[in-house]
């Protein structure tokens, strides 16, 4: 059955191929540094579950050290602007097909195998269907792109390396932050912060309680980088005992608007690397906070909206 281990091995193929491409690039002065970084990444993804935790930890520290030294990869040869314009005219709208095949296959796979079973046979771990479908979608898109554009041999890995080098170390940052979130949870960071918030103000009216709960969700998410990590702490600390039990707020409204206040925090924090830092690298932006700056006005207005909606709509019959 296809589970997380198999999906990890599939994910490892990309950095492994990029590491080999770097290792064979004998003209580049920093080929070993880059090969080491992507090789270590591939090893944790593919072989990590079978290696001791300490070995994986050392591989991660090696990646941190190499990235801090600076990967500075040598550029890969690709087509120039004039060639691309000519090729774009030749292929036309057909170029969109492989790009759209990726989400379509992902969706199709998720919908076709909801329990991971095909013709009664357990094919995919039911919890990993979406990830398996995503990997399959990527494979289909790659095959279609190869069939359509028929590039010279060896181009695929070179193009993959061009994009991987372009994004660089932020590719491992989401996993590093997930690891940090786990350590924060283990060290009880959440309880300390929630206790501090509750000790500061008297939360005895719907408005004040809502304000503390929604701002707490947003701030906590900014710190942890993930609304899912903030939600249990704030909801069990303030949401359930005060907003729902003491002030009789509608539980569905409290939970929904609390979570959405957390999402406002996600839009504001570099800790949510997947959403706010990876695109900076993928779109070749100079300012590390460029995406957050654009999102901030909308995020703050929506936070105000969530607080107002929860205060005004979720407490029928109580004084504001």
């Amino acid at each position: 059955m296809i589970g997380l281990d198999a999906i990890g091995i599939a994910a490892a193929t990309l950095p492994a191929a990029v590491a080999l491409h770097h290792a064979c690039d004998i003209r580049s002065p920093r080929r070993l540094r880059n090969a080491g970084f992507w090789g270590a990444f591939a090893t944790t993804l593919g072989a990590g579950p079978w290696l001791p935790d300490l070995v994986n930890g050392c591989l991660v520290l090696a990646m941190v050290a190499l990235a801090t030294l600076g990967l500075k990869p040598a550029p890969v040869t690709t087509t120039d602007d004039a060639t691309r314009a000519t090729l774009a005219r030749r292929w036309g709208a057909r170029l969109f097909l492989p790009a759209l095949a990726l989400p379509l296959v992902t969706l199709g796979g998720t919908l076709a195998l909801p329990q991971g079973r095909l013709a009664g046979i357990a094919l995919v771990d039911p919890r990993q269907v979406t990830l398996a479908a995503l990997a399959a979608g990527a494979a289909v898109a790659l095959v279609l792109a190869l069939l359509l554009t028929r590039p010279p041999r060896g181009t695929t890995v070179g193009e993959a390396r061009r994009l991987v080098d372009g994004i660089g170390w932020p590719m491992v940052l989401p996993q590093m932050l997930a690891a940090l979130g786990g350590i924060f949870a283990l060290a009880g960071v959440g309880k300390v912060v929630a206790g501090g918030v509750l000790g500061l103000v008297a939360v005895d009216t719907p408005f004040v309680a809502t304000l503390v709960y929604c701002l707490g969700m947003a701030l906590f998410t900014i710190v942890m980088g993930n609304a899912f990590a903030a939600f249990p702490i704030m909801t069990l600390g303030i949401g359930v005992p005060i907003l729902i039990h003491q002030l009789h707020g509608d539980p569905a409204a409290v939970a929904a608007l609390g979570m959405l206040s957390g999402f406002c925090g996600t839009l504001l924090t570099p800790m949510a690397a997947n959403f706010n830092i990876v695109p900076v690298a993928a779109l070749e932006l100079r300012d590390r906070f460029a995406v957050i700056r654009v999102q901030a006005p909308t995020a703050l207005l929506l936070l105000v909206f969530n607080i107002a909606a929860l205060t005004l709509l979720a407490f029928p019959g109580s004084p504001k």
Partner: protein
Amino acid sequence: MLVLSGIVIIVLGFALRIHPLLVVTAAAFASAAAAGHGPIAVIALIGKAFVDARFLAVAWLALPAIGLLERAGLREQARAVVQRLRRATAGRVLLGYFLLRQAAAALGLTALGGHVPMVRPIVAPMVEGAAERDAGAPLDDETRQRLRAHAAAVDNIALFFGEDVFIAIGSILLIRAILQQEGVTVVPLEVAMWAIPSALAALLIHGARLLRLDRTLPR
């Protein structure tokens, strides 16, 4: 209180522009040390948590196909398509993508979009192409950077304020599970209904900002 040292390191590290991977590693060591874990134990903890989160790396598998398509002119094609649509200004292209992304997410189709498979090869070139046609000249670098940041922001905001309208999304399942622990039962449909006002507010607020963006662009 010492466990908060990790947060202090994160805030200072990001503010001082120290390498983020180094900052995160230092914060992990500081918080874990404050909770009584020695350095060897912390390295093992980091290794285990990093491997447990390896599902996050699956999304990168889109890169080889996108690379090949970019090589064959996908971004140029996206630009050319939008330049033929005279009424498609940069702000309107962004708003169109917002509507598509938010509607798809509200139906549970969160895979439709993303910075690497959609924004970089298709949406950003379309937005830049539209702005370039309206300006009648190549964009200056600052405007180009601003438009790209807007394209990334639309992808995020439309996703976050669309997905909670779908009853089987991860966050609603989490909400239900957490409240259940405390003996509070909620119906997923009711939670999803309460996400609709914020979804509409997101569309109105961000949509208005996108349409105003057009007025700040050269023409």
